[in-house]
């Protein structure tokens, strides 16, 4: 039972930070289906940094993980500029641009991973093996019955993500920048009339989105997978987008949706182990989050209120 909560939380939090990334971009009026690509490329940069640095710092040193997270955020931000360029500057169709980014990111990371591995170790492997992140339990909280599992065997990055999520909530809902950003997604003309630059706000939002998604990606690489390989593209980005849609483009509700996904995933897996089914049945249980996504979308999509101007390129001369 405890394992369900522990694993569920370590899956939900990277998902949450990616969902918040998507949310920032969409709230500013740029439809973002590129989260999947951002998280992959972010994780690539993080894993590359970790692979290059770990011989210098020494194996098993946990500092590498924090550096990797920073590099992943920077890498994701850098790659998200491509989405910004296509959507904001070149006024391309934002859905197409998202799909283009996702396809390109798979190819880019696959190619450069094997190129980098050839340069570093001489073998053209398509994965970076990462150190294992240490885990810790919060002393008192982990003793609480029932929900104690949430606080046992935590990854350090879970704390980082939780703090970051809170900061991002504050930035979105309590600051002048956040208000303008939300206005950009509803009525960009009003923002323009008020004297702020719609283009600039959207650029910042897309870059934030890339950075947060990158962090989500490297956290998955460190926790769930233990390496960086093409298996990072498992549709986590799309799950994050689905979570954002249930959350009705609000950070609080999105958090709940992510927790739900995480618990559904780990619960399904534990159920499979508890029922002592053979390993081939795990595939069926791995389907669970995707089926739940689709079912929940059936119930929640109708009533939703997406940002009004999302998907439209900003045109000053339009009303």
């Amino acid at each position, binding site marked *: 039972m405890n394992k369900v909560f522990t694993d569920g939380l370590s899956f939900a939090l990277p998902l949450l930070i990616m969902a918040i990334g998507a949310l920032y971009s969409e709230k500013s009026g740029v439809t973002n*289906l590129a989260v999947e690509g951002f998280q992959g490329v972010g994780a690539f940069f993080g894993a590359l940094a970790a692979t290059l640095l770990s011989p210098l710092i020494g194996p098993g040193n946990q500092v590498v993980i924090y550096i990797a997270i920073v590099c992943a955020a920077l890498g994701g931000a850098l790659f998200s500029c*491509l989405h910004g360029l*296509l959507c904001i*500057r*070149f*006024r*391309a*169709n934002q*859905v*197409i*641009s*998202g*799909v*283009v980014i996702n*396809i*390109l990111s*798979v*190819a*880019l990371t*696959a*190619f450069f991973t*094997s*190129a980098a591995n*050839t340069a570093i170790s001489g073998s*053209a492997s*398509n994965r970076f093996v990462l150190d294992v992140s240490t885990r810790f339990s919060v002393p008192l909280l982990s003793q609480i019955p029932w929900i104690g599992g949430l606080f046992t065997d935590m990854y350090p990055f879970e704390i980082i993500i939780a703090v970051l999520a809170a900061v991002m909530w504050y930035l979105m809902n309590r600051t002048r920048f956040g208000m303008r950003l939300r206005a950009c997604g509803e009525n960009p003309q009003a923002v323009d009339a008020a004297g702020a630059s719609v283009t600039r706000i959207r650029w910042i939002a897309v870059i934030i989105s890339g950075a947060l998604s990158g962090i989500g990606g490297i956290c998955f690489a460190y926790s769930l997978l233990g390496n960086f390989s093409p298996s990072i593209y*498992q*549709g986590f980005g*799309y799950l994050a*987008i*689905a979570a954002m*849609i249930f959350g009705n483009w609000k950070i609080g509700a999105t958090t709940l949706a992510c927790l739900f996904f995480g618990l559904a995933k780990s619960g399904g897996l534990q159920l499979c182990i508890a029922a002592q089914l053979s390993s*081939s*049945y795990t*595939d*069926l249980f*791995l*389907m669970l989050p*995707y*089926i739940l*996504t*689709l079912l929940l*979308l*059936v119930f929640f*999509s*109708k009533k*939703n209120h997406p940002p009004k101007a999302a998907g439209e390129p900003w045109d000053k001369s339009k009303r």
Partner: protein
Amino acid sequence: MRKRRLLFSRLLTGQYASLWVSVLAILMMFVTAGILLLAIGKDPLTALRSFLQGCGMIPKENYGGGSGMLTDLLDFLNYLAPMALASLAFITAFKAGLFNIGIAGQMLLSGFVATVLIGYNKGLSDAAAKPLVLLTGFVVGGLTGALIGYLKYRFNIHEVVSTIMLNYMISYITGFFINKNFVDMMTRNSTVCTPASRLTLTNVMIGGMKCKIPLALIVAILVALLVSFLFRKTVPGFEIKAVGQNRRCSEYIGIRVSRTILLSMGLSGAIAGLAGVAYYLGYTNSIVPKALPGMGYDSISVALLGSASPIGSLFAAVIVSIFQQGANYMSSSVGVAKEIASLITGILLLFASCGNYMKYSAERRIQQAADILPDQNAAPGTKEREDKGVEKQ
């Protein structure tokens, strides 16, 4: 210089604008890929030549026994058939303003069902099995596509999200059944289907060379002509295009939007189903469990490069297939990782998606030239600056 640039702008806004946009995208792709290859210390021209050699368009230095240029060329056509079909599937949905990202999943599901139902049925003759395979692919793919269309108009679920979810579900569930019931212990793939059901005739001897005859290519060309006819000459085709351009306006003039979305998505899925059987019961004859065909995503590049025209995408499919099919030979002869094929396709997609912007900026350039021409001496400074700005874009 200025005149030449204006000439190109005219091409980008003229009658064959879409064609020139594609040509420009391909040129830019060659330049980018060339720079990339130079950066990792390989000769781009040698790489290009070996791509073409791998597809049987230029003779290789030496061939193994019983194979030749024709073998490679027919292998290439064998790959081209599902690719062309998959891109036609994308186009059919794209015209209605829908993005069928689930082509990969639809291909896998229909390939799997056709393999299990027909491919493992040893009693069927050639003449019965092949049409049945096509029919199964068409129906299974069509139902999957229609489901996505239904979710779209009934529950307002974005088709990109629902197709991706379906992709993963299909990949897991077919993987589960293959691993449980149909796995070949040697290859870890599904057991091979009967030759009678396969859409490719294997081991045909032509001039002493062992060749494969891709029957699916005929299907692909027929479907391309039919889709072209659908959008040019028929009422449903017009309605699909109208819905794609302005959903509200179509509703207002009395087009039943829900039915049109269902139709275009169902048709798109059905063609993807044909692509699936052409891939899994033609190009290959077994299924790798839990792997979605990359072709499902490459077909998006093909469709966008062909500016969503059925006939144009046939030609675009040739270009993308050259890189995908030639990658193995290129990789072994030049020594670049074969992932570069996907990278090149991605770059091509990137430039093709800027097509509208190219047209838009060309229009603006012509407009500016027309504005400036009457008084050349008015303000040379501003003219120069605007010019540079446009060039950067």
